[in-house]
């Protein structure tokens, strides 16, 4: 099991670059039983970050794998809702 600090991933990078880094970490730890994404200190999750990280993960591994493999901790209710909506909308987009 590994824990990724999202705040550290976002440090000193623009959102698309940080998203690329996060996706690379997902791939690096894909064989771990669980990947924990810690949202401590993270205020914002714009789509230009989500699209190249979580969005790319869903494209390559599927939403079910995301739900089973990745846990989100120390997250606000709004962020959780945003991720839930994002996954739903992206899956709908991919289906079309």
């Amino acid at each position, binding site marked *: 099991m590994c824990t990724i600090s999202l705040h550290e991933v976002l440090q000193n990078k*623009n*959102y*698309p670059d940080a*998203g690329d880094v996060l996706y690379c970490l997902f791939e690096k730890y894909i064989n771990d039983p669980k990947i924990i994404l810690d949202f401590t200190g993270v*205020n*914002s*999750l*714009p*789509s*230009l*970050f*989500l*699209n*190249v990280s979580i*969005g790319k993960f869903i494209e390559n591994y599927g939403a079910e794998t995301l*739900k089973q493999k990745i*846990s*989100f*901790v*120390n*997250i*606000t*209710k*709004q*962020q*959780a809702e*945003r*991720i*839930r909506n*994002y996954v739903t*909308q*992206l899956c*709908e*987009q991919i289906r*079309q």
Partner: protein
Amino acid sequence: MQVDEYKIVFDSLEERSWLSIISQECQKEIFEEHVSLTFPVDVSMLQPMHVASLACFVHYLRGKGNNVTIKGDEEEFVNALLYYSHRTTNASCLGLWRIEESWKESKCIQITNFLKSIASLKRKDLSAFQISLEEAYANVFDHAQANENAYSFISFDEKKMKIGVAICDFGVGIPKTIAGTIRVSVLDSIAIVTAMENGFSAKSQKHNRGFGLANIRSACTDSDEFCVISRSGKVVAKGSEESIYKSLFDFPGTLLFYEISLENYDDEELINEFEW
């Protein structure tokens, strides 16, 4: 020696009149080197959309080689509004700034942190507002091709707890971007509605998937309006309703403005672990 001067008078604060003046003057060839702008109106009533569009217009004129001056009784006030710099502290993060790629993300954080420093907003979850700015600024660089002519004006009314945002660019405009994607000619207002659809993307950059404008809109609460004007199209969204208009002018870019009633935002609530 008399200097030839071209005079432009902003004699109304009404949105259509203001933008019509800007649009029409952008279509003219101004031969005079000196251009003066006057504002025989109550400039204390200027809204973010007035200032952001004016800043783009002044930038445009100067880029054409015109020497632009503000004249009249309101000279000092308007000049102060148009003055921008990389100020980094407190309430000075509000107001006008030219949108720069290197600054855009830290600017959003700075503005949000400033709002959080206000006692009545301290507990509020302002992430939706921050995201709306981030998405709007990202759109300028991803799609607009504005050649550095893009401005943002943000105001905050502490009594009403409302934040006003306007982002303007003199880029290619949404209709042209959409036409390039769908390869079909549509009305400019329909192009804007299409761009606002969740999941519709011009795919100008690899990180685009078409959620940007929808995210900005969703940051507005049900009582707030979100307005997009681009070329001759205008769309006003309020809650789930959309009103579509054809402008009588051809705005030379995109102007996006909205207001958020921050008191309607929920308090921030932390959950230990997210369950699907």
